[in-house]
């Protein structure tokens, strides 16, 4: 997973995080807990199932741009899986 952050007049940030580190059982537990704290009824099984599907999709579709955000103040964030 690659996270690119471009800010005007600031240093650019490019984070490369191994997908396995982001999408595993532990992160699924953390994500489910965090969602429950925020009032969402997500279970570990749902999150882990979704992560598995995401990893499967990534295998066949490399360099897939998940999100691109451009703020009115000129900041730009891009997440590529």
């Amino acid at each position, binding site marked *: 997973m690659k996270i690119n952050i*471009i*800010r*005007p*007049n*600031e240093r*650019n940030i490019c984070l490369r995080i191994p997908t396995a580190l982001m999408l595993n059982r532990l992160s699924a537990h953390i994500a489910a807990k965090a969602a429950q704290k925020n009032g*969402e009824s*997500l279970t570990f*099984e*749902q999150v882990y*199932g*979704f992560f598995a*599907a*995401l990893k499967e*999709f990534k295998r066949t*579709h490399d360099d*897939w*741009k*998940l*999100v*691109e*955000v*451009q*703020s*009115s103040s*000129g*900041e*730009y964030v891009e997440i590529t899986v």
Partner: protein
Amino acid sequence: MDMTLGKRIAFFRKEKGFTQEGLAQKMNVSAQAVSKWENDQTCPDVQSLPLLSQILGITVDELLSGRKENMPAVVMLPEEKRRDISEMMLRIVVDSADGDKVRVNLPMALVKVAIELGMEMPQVSGNKALKSIDFKQIFELVSHGAMGNLVEVESSDGDTVRIFVE
């Protein structure tokens, strides 16, 4: 649009009705710098691309690649012409009244899995218009052959949300 970066800058600048001086002023650079960009002698700084694209009213991707975000009209494909749903991409385009732009590309395969798991689709932004969109219905539409610009919502705040399938 098969053009160089400089030609694209010039094209979008003229489309917006700016002079080179006007654009230079907004970008806080000299008019000569803009002239050099447009003549492909130099390129704008990477850090200034978000601001430049915002002033020109396009995305960074559109500025760099020249690919315009296409919003095809909705069509119902007959069964023999339909593609495998797992090869399709659901694109969510949110343009807020404040000038923020959010683009999300979700593979239909993942949307299907999320629905099967009983998950609510994640809130892509705090946009009110997006909360009321039923992704199950969108998936149903796509699985019955609907393609193109499926949803177009404009909230009272001036935010627009468009969802289309490719």
